């Protein structure tokens, strides 16, 4: 009974929980990556107790993999050694942690998944409770199998209408970030719903859950419906790994702290401008701004369908000579499909650099670093100062379509001109 987050926690704890309750929850999976696992190992050693259940621990090397420097290599070494020492079953090196979690079937409706990464909210797109925590709490969960939560109040965002051609889910989410602000949902669960969301395929729903982090949310949930079940059934690992039958989860007689209703029909392409993710403007206000690097990647927008949009706009053309264009598929699986269907060839012929899957340029530590005074337009989720390299560089966030046409002109460009 209640909001989606109350529903998930009630099912999980076997009793009715309400916003404000403090609960101790049995977690399904505990995720961490090369950036956060070393600290968790350190905390684990300090606690000095054995691992509670190895099957719940999922590790990824994605933030800087393969290692770009000695320190990163040492971090990877620590993790490989730990996996061997503890005989852990799950260590992945095949792409961005959040994408791989979904592809490998760890994310199912009703699951509670904690991750040592702020974008663990991503799992909400499949009706799972996903949230980011620090490394110490990850180690605590390794040894206890549990985590405490204060059940959050919920802000429900109802979206209706249909976007215009050239306007994508990313534009809608950027618009919401601008509307709510970076502090707009702090400590809250954000529930995305309404006819617009119900009609979205999973790869676009993910954008909303993923970027709920940017407005401070504890989780960004979307009801699990037939679309969710169908998506998961088509992926064998999900069926093999899930301990429960795949079931729809909807809110029941919910009480919301806040309810927003937004019509997306008239929305134009949006850009989050330097230096804050809530500094969002309609694209036309910044159109023509010179761009030095375009980065198409990350857990927000580097899925196969995103790459398809980019390829359709670049096919048979060359990117502007003054722009570095980097394409980083979110996972090996996506990379392979893009290769089989000729997308990679299109990118290479257009003059893009295609890198191995992973976080890549997103954190300025693995290629694609920005120089002082440079300006990047990317499909990322956040544009913090200094994130991609020099603190004197500027980062602009947009949809894959906007990124593609901007790559062609070297200036922020409206994708609707290319329809």
């Amino acid at each position, binding site marked *: 009974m209640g909001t989606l987050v109350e529903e998930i926690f009630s099912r999980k704890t*076997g009793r009715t929980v309400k916003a404000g309750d403090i609960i101790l929850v049995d977690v399904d999976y505990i995720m961490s990556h090369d950036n956060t696992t070393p600290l968790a190992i350190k905390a684990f050693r300090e606690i000095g107790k054995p691992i509670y259940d190895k099957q719940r621990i999922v590790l990824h090397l994605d933030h800087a993999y393969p290692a770009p420097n000695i320190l990163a290599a040492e971090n990877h070494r620590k993790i490989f050694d730990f996996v061997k020492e503890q005989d852990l079953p799950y260590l992945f090196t095949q792409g961005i942690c959040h994408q791989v979690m979904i592809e490998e079937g760890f994310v199912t409706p009703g699951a509670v998944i904690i991750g040592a*990464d702020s974008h663990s909210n991503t799992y909400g797109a499949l009706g799972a409770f996903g949230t980011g925590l620090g490394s110490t709490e990850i180690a605590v969960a390794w040894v*206890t199998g549990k985590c405490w939560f204060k059940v959050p109040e919920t802000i429900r965002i109802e979206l209706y209408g249909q976007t215009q051609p050239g306007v994508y889910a990313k534009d809608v989410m950027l618009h919401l970030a601008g509307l709510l602000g970076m502090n707009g949902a702090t400590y809250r669960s954000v529930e995305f719903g309404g006819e617009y969301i119900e009609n979205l395929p999973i790869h676009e729903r993910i954008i909303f859950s993923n970027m709920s982090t940017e407005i401070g949310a504890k989780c960004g949930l979307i009801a699990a419906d037939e679309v969710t079940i169908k998506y998961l059934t088509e992926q064998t690992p999900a069926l093999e790994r899930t301990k429960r039958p795949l079931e729809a989860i909807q809110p029941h007689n919910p009480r919301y702290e806040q309810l927003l209703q937004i019509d997306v029909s008239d929305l134009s392409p949006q850009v989050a401008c330097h230096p804050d993710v809530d500094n969002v403007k309609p694209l036309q206000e910044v159109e023509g701004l010179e761009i030095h690097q375009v980065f198409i990647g990350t857990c927000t927008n580097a899925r196969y369908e995103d790459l398809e949009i980019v390829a359709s706009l670049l096919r048979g053309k060359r990117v502007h000579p003054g722009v570095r264009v980097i394409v980083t598929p979110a996972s090996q699986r996506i990379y392979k499909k893009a290769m089989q269907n000729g997308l990679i060839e299109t990118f290479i012929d257009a003059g893009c650099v295609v890198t191995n899957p992973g976080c890549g340029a997103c954190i300025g530590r693995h290629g694609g670093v920005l120089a002082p005074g440079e300006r990047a337009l990317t499909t990322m989720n956040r544009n913090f100062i200094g994130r991609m390299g020099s603190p004197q560089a500027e980062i602009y966030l947009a949809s894959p379509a906007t990124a593609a046409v901007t790559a062609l002109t070297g200036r922020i460009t409206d994708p609707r001109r290319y329809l």
Partner: protein
Amino acid sequence: MGKAWTFGDNMNTDEIIPGRFNITTDPQELARNAFCEVKPEFAKNVRPGDVIVAGQNFGCGSSREHAVIAIKGTQVKCVIASSYARIFFRNAVNLGLPILECPEAVAGIREGDEVEVDLSTGLIHNLSTGATFQARPLPEFVLKIAEAGGIIQFLKHHDFQELMGQTGKK
């Protein structure tokens, strides 16, 4: 008693400690670069016992504990903010960094003011102006972790279940 260092709203983890320094977890090492882009003079001049005073949503952004470790490394007495980002709040509690929530104090303290803080009562005294502020009390189970010096210390001597009293189920 210590000096106040003031910061604005939405200080994110990259501003507290830029990602490029996160290749270490050594508190002193991280402290040397704390806030290096937003307030370059901070790391050089901060003294043990000083206080960080910040606006809303302090510590937003990454889940990295480096931000909390960097601040701990500066040996400030505590952070006083109008509000905290969710993960930062948990990380601070878990790692034993004292944090107080008090928008009134944030409005009533300027850079360089001499500030005295009683962590046990949450009383904040601005010696430069004479004003006194009362911080919001922390939830009881958070206090238990804080009193133990962080979650690791707590778990060494207690069961996780104890945190919840009777509410922990399963």
